[in-house]
């Protein structure tokens, strides 16, 4: 069994000791205060705390051992509750490598192994030397390739030959081709077009002084429009509508600027020096300015392929490619997981997608036109509610009598309904189901028939009135922000039933065809 890198022990023990020292100091001071002990008890307890937690971290380091033997990753860990875990290599979906700032300074890499099922990372080695990380990644990759070849009958599995053969072969197979790299220009373009309006909100909420910062800006705005810089609603009272509008516009512009700056910075930090390689049958990416990430996406384990284009990207013919395996569980922390190509010209993205899952040109079937009436109705309700709110605010607070301006929203209703309708649809290709939805951010999800799990057909009361249904083909990929299942919204009731039958049929025929192809390969050699 192997141990983690000694420098990671230093890091962990150091971190634990600092925490223990702080904890000991506070407990000691509190005890000294409440029990009337002499004042030196506080500082005296700090080294004690550091020794205990540091020692514990050291023992944990010595207890943590791992090894890849007999096609299995074995991990032993735990001091009080001991755990040993074995993961068959064939079940590993992704291997991810990451380095924080400290890890980079110390020359360490964290290795995460993901399997399907389970909501957390199944095995995390924190941390090993970069060469060791690379070795582990290669072992998993090599195992995948060998088992695939064995299934196809290309590798003679007699034990004595395989070792030397496999290693020489893997050297040949590991030919690395560059698929894609971000230049500074690409990176900045991507950062601008993928602007996330929620970014400043989340960042401000995360900053310790976020609230104070917002307050300072609001005060500044108030002085600009000539009011007292006090944060109470009463300062707004002597305001006429023009000044209120000016204040609102000013704040909006600032917010948008902040959104732009914050999300550009975040994107640059996240995707700095993004590169995508192809290694045999795997995609490998690396990215990150402060923290470095790299990982492998085995193409044979891809569940869904997603193409995302927001309004701006569509305008410039750009798209994002997301490739999902079943590996990540409840991926809340990283919406970036599975991003194979953050941004590239649309054709290139589709070319790569076809390389992963072959498909033709989609001809999307749009929902029936009565679905558009449904959307129009829905948007009209939203507009009516906004009008109601506007009317109430105007009557009770502003008394300007200008609430009718909001009636203009109704003009937008048909347009919005049409756009929503136009961007929804599904297509049944030879081997894949494709669904598409979203105007602001259009998502095209491509699911091979043999990856379909459960098929849901749902009808809300409003859909039933118009004979519409929503069909969802679930896959084993991750239910993250980007991920999830392929959904065909508001299709005709009859089409929905046909689609369900078709998906069920194709699942079996495609699974069988794949199995037969594999067997043919075997007997052919």
């Amino acid at each position: 069994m192997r141990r983690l890198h000694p420098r990671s022990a230093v890091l962990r023990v150091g971190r634990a000791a600092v925490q223990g020292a702080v904890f000991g100091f506070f407990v000691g001071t509190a005890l000294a205060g409440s029990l009337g002990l002499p004042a030196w008890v506080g500082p005296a307890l700090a080294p004690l705390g550091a020794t205990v937690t540091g020692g514990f971290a050291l023992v944990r380091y010595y207890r943590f051992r791992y090894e890849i033997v007999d096609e299995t990753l074995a991990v032993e860990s735990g001091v009080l509750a001991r755990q040993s875990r074995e993961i068959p290599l064939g079940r590993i979906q992704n291997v991810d490598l990451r380095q924080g700032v400290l890890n980079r300074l110390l020359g360490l890499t964290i290795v995460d192994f993901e399997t399907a099922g389970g909501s957390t990372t199944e095995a995390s080695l924190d941390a090993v030397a970069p060469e060791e990380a690379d070795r582990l990644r290669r072992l998993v990759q090599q195992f995948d390739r060998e088992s695939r070849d064995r299934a196809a009958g290309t590798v003679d599995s007699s034990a004595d030959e395989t070792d030397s053969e496999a290693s020489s072969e893997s050297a040949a197979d590991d030919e690395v081709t560059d698929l894609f790299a971000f230049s500074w220009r690409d990176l900045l373009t991507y950062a601008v077009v993928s602007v996330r309006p929620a970014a400043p909100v989340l960042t401000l909420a995360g900053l310790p002084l976020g609230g104070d910062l917002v307050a300072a800006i609001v005060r500044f705005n108030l002085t600009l429009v000539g009011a007292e810089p006090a944060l109470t609603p009463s300062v707004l009272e002597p305001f006429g509508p023009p000044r209120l509008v000016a204040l609102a516009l000013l704040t909006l512009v600032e917010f948008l600027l902040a959104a732009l700056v914050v999300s550009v910075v975040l994107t640059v930090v996240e995707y700095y020096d993004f590169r995508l390689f192809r290694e045999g049958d795997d995609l490998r990416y690396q990215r990150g300015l402060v923290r470095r990430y790299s990982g492998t996406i085995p193409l044979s384990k891809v569940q869904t392929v997603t193409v995302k284009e927001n309004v701006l990207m569509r305008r410039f013919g750009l798209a994002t490619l997301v490739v999902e395996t079943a590996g990540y569980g409840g991926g809340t922390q990283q919406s970036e997981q599975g991003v194979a190509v953050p941004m590239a010209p649309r054709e290139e993205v589709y070319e790569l997608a076809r390389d992963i899952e072959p498909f033709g040109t989609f001809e999307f079937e749009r929902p029936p036109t009565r679905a558009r009436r449904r959307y129009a109705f829905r948007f009209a309700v939203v507009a009516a509610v906004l009008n109601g709110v506007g009317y109430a605010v105007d009557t009770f607070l502003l008394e300007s009598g200008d609430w009718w301006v909001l009636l203009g929203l109704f003009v937008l209703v048909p347009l919005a309904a049409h756009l929503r309708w136009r961007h929804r649809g599904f297509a049944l290709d030879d081997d894949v189901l494709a669904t598409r939805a979203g105007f602001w951010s259009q998502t095209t999800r491509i699911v091979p028939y043999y990856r379909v799990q459960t098929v849901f057909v749902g009808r809300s009361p409003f859909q039933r009135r118009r004979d519409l249904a929503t069909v969802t083909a679930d896959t084993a990929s991750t239910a993250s922000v980007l991920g999830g299942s392929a959904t065909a919204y508001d299709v005709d009731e009859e089409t929905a039933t046909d689609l369900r039958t078709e998906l069920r049929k194709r699942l079996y025929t495609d699974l069988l065809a794949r199995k037969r192809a594999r067997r043919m390969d075997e007997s052919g050699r």
Partner: protein
Amino acid sequence: MESLHPRVRLLWAGRTVVFASVLLGLAVLADRLVVSVPLDLVAVGWGVLVVLGAVHAVFAHRIWRFGLQDDALFLVRGVLTRTDTSVPYVRVQHVDTTRGPVERAAGLASVVVYTAGSRGADITIPGLRPERATELRERLRDLASESEATDAV
């Protein structure tokens, strides 16, 4: 297509009664300790909830159907949003029968079918007679292994 045991209505209606009563209890507590609450209104609310729960249970039972088709387990459910679900046998990972304390008291059992999917990875068929639940579980297990899932996920 098979429907659920009629007694499951009692179970579902009972669940809303418990839920409504907990709300009622909270309201009474709040009334005693914090602010005065219009308790007669709360009582009416309790009644409305209980009646709604009972009506919902009746409809839910009437709509709930499931059947073993030749390649998939098929279920229809949902009072407001009606959903039909097909779970292909190849995709069944494992099958459980469960009997909670309340279900045991009502003499009922549930079957839970697990898939590797991301949404609705576990699908529950409630309100079965215990013998039927066991039988269904064994049947589903056989169907799943007959369909020979060669792909792990």
